[in-house]
């Protein structure tokens, strides 16, 4: 009922126009290689300072949601995920796209993105207080366990060569050591460069690893035009087989989103890994499986509803974007937190309504823009790639307004290129970069709290549960690898 009022508010106040506008801008900015939903919010939010709060909120929700969905476009079409969250999408999405399922892959990605947000939105409006309590149970040892769970994923995303995947991950962990020790504040491996005191910022690293390296790769091979077979893949004929994947992944996405500090990146990787575990005979994960795209995209979008739960109930951000949203709510004089439901209930429900509207718009825009997107990316790559390089540079710079990040992006571009040449898989390195700080900080924090006694971690049921899941998943992965010889 309150939600219905929310829809009425959005429509009568003209907020719907701003949702439409925000979603369009979000999808475009998100789809540009090198730009992310967080950056789209950062760029557009200052424009809303002068707006009425409700209208500004409608617009920002549109940008937030469509920005994440748009992030799948470069991942699928160019193999250049702009955010860690859509890196898992690229694994199968790019293969499918290359194999001639261009339109289907993009449309499916937008469809499950929209549906994923709707799924998490329903959980948000029905179960928020309950799930918020669950999120609070997570302390340092549990975050540490969650990080270790992520480590077990490395093997399943290593592709053909498991050992090379592990080496790539170790390189990632080594790179993550650069920066300031989080518990003692002492800089390490900075080679006397103050720019490294804060560590390697991982968005520039990601842009280099996935974006720039692809351009280098192309330059070396001088591909004339991509060989796109027009044969239609049969995977689409039986859409019912996608349903379990969708619901499983959206649930994972929502729950991981609701744990503050674990964002869309971890959600999509975990969901992709779980989907692989549930693989049926004939599924081709890693070699162009639509379920892989669905797993990653529905999870990283379902993360939205999850991340809004701690934000609305406790005023604690669930991810980078919600941290930004909290800041802008504050600038508009609103205090996200426990009292907002009482003090600003009209606004809260209008905000939830705009979540649903924005996700519908993602589907509508996605289905109608796919043809246009395909036309653009099918232009000769000698036109596409210079533009991509520009976006890589702009994206790497814009995240911190820091020119050093552009150099970082270049170095990682070279590293990514060398890894591609030597057939080392890149996703494990990326995952290690994301997980390392989470593992280290929470291990040290947990030890501090428990007076240095690691065994105390095992007295925590939730810690044991997560570690248990991790071990089971690792065993399944290893067994599956043995059973199914990896093909090219």
């Amino acid at each position: 009922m309150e939600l219905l009022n929310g829809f009425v508010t959005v429509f009568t106040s003209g907020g719907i126009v701003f949702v439409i506008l925000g979603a369009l801008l979000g999808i475009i900015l998100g789809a540009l290689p090198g730009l992310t939903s967080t950056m789209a919010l950062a760029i557009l939010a200052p424009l809303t300072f002068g707006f009425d709060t409700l209208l500004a909120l409608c617009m920002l929700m549109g940008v937030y949601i469509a920005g994440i969905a748009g992030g799948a476009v470069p991942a699928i079409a160019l193999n250049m995920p702009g955010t860690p969250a859509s890196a898992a999408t690229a694994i199968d999405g790019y293969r499918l796209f290359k194999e001639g399922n261009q339109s289907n892959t993009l449309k499916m990605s937008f469809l499950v993105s929209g549906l994923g947000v709707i799924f998490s939105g329903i959980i948000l409006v029905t179960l928020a207080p309950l799930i918020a309590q669950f999120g609070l149970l997570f302390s340092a040892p549990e975050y540490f366990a969650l990080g270790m769970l992520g480590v077990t994923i490395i093997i399943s995303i290593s592709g053909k060569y498991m050992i090379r995947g592990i080496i790539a991950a170790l390189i990632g962990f080594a790179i993550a050591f650069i920066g300031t020790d989080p518990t003692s504040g002492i800089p390490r491996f900075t080679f006397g460069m103050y720019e490294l005191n804060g560590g390697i910022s991982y968005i520039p690293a990601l842009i280099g690893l996935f974006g720039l390296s692809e351009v280098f790769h192309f330059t070396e091979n001088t591909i004339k035009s991509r060989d796109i077979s027009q044969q239609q893949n049969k995977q689409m004929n039986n859409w019912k087989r996608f349903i379990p994947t969708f619901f499983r992944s959206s649930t994972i996405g929502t729950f991981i989103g609701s744990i503050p500090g674990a964002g869309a990146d971890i959600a999509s990787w975990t969901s992709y890994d779980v989907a692989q575990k549930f693989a049926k005979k004939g599924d081709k994960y890693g070699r162009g499986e639509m379920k892989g795209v669905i797993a990653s995209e529905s999870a990283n979008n379902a993360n939205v509803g999850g991340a809004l739960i701690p934000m609305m109930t406790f005023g604690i951000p669930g991810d980078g974007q919600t941290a930004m949203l909290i800041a802008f709510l504050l600038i508009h004089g609103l205090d996200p937190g426990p009292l907002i439901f009482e003090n600003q209930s009209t606004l809260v429900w209008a905000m939830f309504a705009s979540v649903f509207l924005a996700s519908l718009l993602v589907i509508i825009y996605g289905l109608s823009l796919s043809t246009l997107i395909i036309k653009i990316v099918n232009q000769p790559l000698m036109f596409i790639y210079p533009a991509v390089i520009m976006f890589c540079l702009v994206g790497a710079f814009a995240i911190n307004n820091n020119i050093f990040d552009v150099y970082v992006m270049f170095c990682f571009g070279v590293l990514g290129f060398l890894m591609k040449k030597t057939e080392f898989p890149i996703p494990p390195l990326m995952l290690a970069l994301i997980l390392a700080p989470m593992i280290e900080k929470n291990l040290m924090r947990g030890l501090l709290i428990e007076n240095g006694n690691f065994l105390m971690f095992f007295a925590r049921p939730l810690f044991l549960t997560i570690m248990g899941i991790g071990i089971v998943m690792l065993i399944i992965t290893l067994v599956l690898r043995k059973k199914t010889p990896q093909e090219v």
Partner: protein
Amino acid sequence: MNKKWIVLVTIIFVSVFIAACGSESSSSEGNGEEAESQGSESESENNDSASAELPEGDIQTMIPVAEGGGTDTTHRGLADIVEEYLDRNVVVNNVTGSGGSVGFSEAANYEGDGSHLFSYTSEIFTLPIYQENTGFKPEDFKPLLNISHDPAAIVVSADSEYETLDDFIQAAEENPGQISIGNSGFGNIWHLSATAFEKEAGIEFKQVPYDGAAETVQATLGGHIDSFVASPPEVASQVEAGELRILATMAEERSEHFPDVPTLSENDIEISIGTWRGLGVPSDTPNEIVTKLEEAYSQAINSEEFEQFMDEQGMNIRFMNNEDFTEFVENERPRFEQLAQEAEAQEE
């Protein structure tokens, strides 16, 4: 073969282009014209220090931390209002990284012509202590004026067994090093505040670093730590909702927003510490320019509009003019440097 060269040349061209305008480009606040701000540089070279005129073009304000925090919000609110008094566009840039070192290191290269201001906080003194290799020295900058001040506050969960400050201190005395107190990051102002509290009260806590106030709030609500240090505005909504309780603030006087919360000095623990947010300029800025900026910013800070803005944020204005702020900073500097050294020594 040809295509290869086209792409390579494009790579080089674009990267040189970006590198060249890197230091000039700015995010946000939109209406600034890049061309104008570049024009200002050549002009300022001509009339050097002789003139007291601000250079033509936009005024840039650099914030070394990310969008959204209290420092950023304060400066963005002020930038909007001061434009009228300065008769210039004021553009806010966030240059982030390495806990502020990257931004301050960039500021160390600014020209002292009044076109570039930056956030002036205690990190200018503490960062060089933790990070031996910062690209700036405190002497590269001088304070312009102070805008606001938020004291440190000791916060516990509403269902905590520590009802009052006395309970809390007593517990810490009985169990030295066992009561956990969270802060927003190693070397952060709230870490130093807790260290100052320990020293002055002669007690010892278990200090646990998190990333930002939101994480400490979460850990406390979840019962994973006993308490944490933050500023009152950072916890206002949870306190009002009855989920968190402020035991005491480390201010000289009680807060207007929380008149029931005592200060530490009422309990004979003489500490006044917190985060002050000022503006600074490069140290070679001529005095005439400083006066000019001070005039416009004083009017903006003391305007009703800014007062209302800060009140909505639950933040406190504490205006200090150039003279007072300079003196204040001189007194604060040795204290912060000493606290930073102690915090670091504790760790080893």
